[in-house]
């Protein structure tokens, strides 16, 4: 069952097309990685999916519902959770508080949506705090502690410390805990291991793998190809705002277009005879004919 469907989504910033007619479909339980060089438009794509940015064209469907016009908070209520590329925790809030914000949409008070009366009701509830309210608060608290426990002893002992005092890796973990507290239908992870050392990266890898095993649907932006290879059911490669390749991890890895996107086009001012010895083990782009290389041959050599 297709859970998330993005159709020909497009975003322009004054002449620069950041996301150019990108489409993707995420099935329930699937993990898709979005990779590509910097500036390819991956985070912009995430922003468009989560509602932080408005597309110039195209649509986003979640669970069959068109959410293109919805603001981010409404999308969160429908089960879309995300982490941010540079880690946006609530610095002055405790770790536990951070996670409890993740559960915001799951509270009963959240359903009081009528414009004015809902506001007054929420205010009254926060003031009166009836037993049902208190019971829910305790239940959510216990749940949050359970989520923290998923990170072995990284977060749980620090539950009441302010998030700004945490190490970078722990802050990223807090972000993930917060996202889990929302009980998402689709989890969007934006470079969850950015800036982490190999040990930390491995921990996150195992964590995401565990989430996968529990059936979580994940959309992942990552630069570390080892993670991508191990976790993804499918990989989407973006470059310059477009999807240039899509498919199974291994197929994508060897796709010459993908290699070219990452490594650039090799400009060799030699004839084909020398060429063979110098190139690494990749398939040569047939467009690199000797004919087209001739102008470069005229350049002075040091």
């Amino acid at each position: 069952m297709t859970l998330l469907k993005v159709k020909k989504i497009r975003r322009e910033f004054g002449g620069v097309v950041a996301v150019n007619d990108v489409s993707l479909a995420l099935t329930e339980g699937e993990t898709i990685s979005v990779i590509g060089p910097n500036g390819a438009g991956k985070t912009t794509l995430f922003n468009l999916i989560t509602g932080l940015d408005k597309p110039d064209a195209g649509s986003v469907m979640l669970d069959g519902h068109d959410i293109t016009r919805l603001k981010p908070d409404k999308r969160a209520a429908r089960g879309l959770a995300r982490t941010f590329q540079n880690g946006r925790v609530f610095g002055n809030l405790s770790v536990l508080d951070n996670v409890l914000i993740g559960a915001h949409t799951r509270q009963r008070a959240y359903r009081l949506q009528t414009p004015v009366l809902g506001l007054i009701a929420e205010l009254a509830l926060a003031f009166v705090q009836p037993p049902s309210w208190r019971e829910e608060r305790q239940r959510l608290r216990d749940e949050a502690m359970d989520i923290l426990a998923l990170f072995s002893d990284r977060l749980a002992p620090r539950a009441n410390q302010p998030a700004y005092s945490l190490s970078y890796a722990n802050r990223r973990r807090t972000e993930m805990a917060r996202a889990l507290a929302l009980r998402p239908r689709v989890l969007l992870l934006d470079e969850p291991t950015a800036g982490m050392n190999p040990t930390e990266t491995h921990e996150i890898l195992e964590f995401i793998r565990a989430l996968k095993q529990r059936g979580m649907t994940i959309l992942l932006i990552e630069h570390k190809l080892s993670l991508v290879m191990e976790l993804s059911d499918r990989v989407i490669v973006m470059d310059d705002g477009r999807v240039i390749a899509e498919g199974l991890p291994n197929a994508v890895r060897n796709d010459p277009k993908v290699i070219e996107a990452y490594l650039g086009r090799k400009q060799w001012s030699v004839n084909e005879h020398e060429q063979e010895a110098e190139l690494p083990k990749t398939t040569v782009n047939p467009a690199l004919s000797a004919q087209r290389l001739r102008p470069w041959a005229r350049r002075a050599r040091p």
Partner: protein
Amino acid sequence: MPDITLRALLDQTINGLAIGNIYALVAIGLALIFGVANLINFAHGSVYMIGAYLGWICVTYFGLPLALTFVIVAAACALIGILIERFGLRSLQNSARIAPLLATIGIAFALDQLVQILFSANPQSFPSPLPSQRIQLGGVNIGWLDVLIAGMTLAIAAALYGFLRFTKLGWSLRATAQDREAAQQMGVDVNRVNATTFAVAAALGGIAGVLIGMYFNTVYSSMSYQATLKGFAANLLGGLGSVPGAIVGGLLLGLIESYGVALLGATYRNLFAFVILIGVLVFLPSGLFGKRRAAPEPLTGTFVSNSKPVPVPPWLIVAAALVAAFLPAITTNPYLLQTLTNAWLFSMLALSLTLVTGIAGQISLGQAGFLAIGGYTSALLTMRLHAPFELSIFIGAIVAAALGTLLLLPAFRLRGPYVAIATLAVGEIINQIILNWEGVTNGPLGLSNIPPPTLFGLQIITPTAVYWFTLGLLIVAALAQLRLVRSHLGRTWRAVREDDVAAQAFGVNLNRYKALAFATAGLVAGLSGAFTAHMYSYVNHETFPAATSILALTMVILGGMGNMIGAVVGAVALTTIPEVFRFLAEYRYLVYGIVLVLLIRFRPQGLLGTI
């Protein structure tokens, strides 16, 4: 409908352009500072006012020729600008973005009071030294002053253009405006650039002040505040940070004001600027010529510096409350009781502000507006409808909450310094409405003979009774607010403060929670304002001036943003300490301004730390 002849239209156009030119001069200075130093300078109007007063002295007391006056004013104001940048703001370069904004507010406050102390608060007459005949120019009737204004503005604009386009320092300015770090790496002395910018902006402001003084033949102490707001309005209209935009914005503002005054009357003059301000903020935040920048980062999230609150043991709080409660049993000194009563009333205002700004992260510079609405509503209910005080005070609070929040609704989509400006404007709009809606509010005369507060039939008029009632109100309000802040609602508010983008991503509807914060704050502040009105039995548009909002902000920062105990401590400190130092009474507000600047510089987390 007044008779609109072509002649009258032309006259109003000339008027509008003349005054628009002056606004343009003010706005250019603001645009330069915002573009280069990337900060909103609330002290700009104060420099403008200083220029006006200096010009007045030169012309009226020393009888100096006009040209020399302008040179002196420009030089003196440039010096002041340099001093402000060097001593008030330079050390804040690496602080959170909100710090310089608050510092300029403190500086503005201090400078305004300084002028008031030196020259008295009364308006001074400033006769224009120019010949008074009018010139006939192709069917239009203009004065020498109009010619002077137009000429000066043209000359200044041309000089500025030349400076920015053709001189090395000018290029440095533009480079710094585009990318400060890159400019620094290219060897630009950013400090020198900042100082130059402030000097130029201040000089322009000072000149504009002199011209306005001559135009209206008067200098007065609330000039600065209006100039700041109008400068913002012109700037926002043209596009924040854009010098050509500032010129166009200023001219447009002048024209709109001129036509508006012709249609509706002189008392509405200032209202237009504020309406434009709000209108632009809501519908066209980047202005006519501004670049469509990405939304600015929210300010308070980074200012609530990562600090831990100083732990205050609960028994201490209870003990303090008990001492406060039993104080009248120990002493019946009415002076002490009245001072503390004021302290309690201000504490409620500070509590309301710390909720909105400290906990929810929405900078509010117009909190006094809630006081005014609460005060007037309660007074009118008891006077016109003979409602009992026990009921009117609560309805006053509710109306303050509802109306205040409603007026602020358009500002919720704003971020960063724009919110501060919007709240300032709304606070001023409330004052203007009170001033002009004579049928209901009695205009400048205010409401007198407001019935005293009562409780179950007993009048609350003795100092002791008043003291106990306000203390009771404070304790009830504080406990209620504490309960809310400790709940998930409080947590949500703090999330909005910390990172509203992340908060939204997890289901927090920003408008809803901002509205809740302002509404709750409005309830508390409204109660305070309502009681004040009945306590004084008189209220007018000057009972809750803009200075009160700034004072509340100082109290909140002194105590620690978001820290409720801190809010009370700050309020008590700033209400009672000046009484101890009676000899400082005249300099009270000057001291407040200086305190604010020092706090921002040396202890932004306040005495008790932020929560």
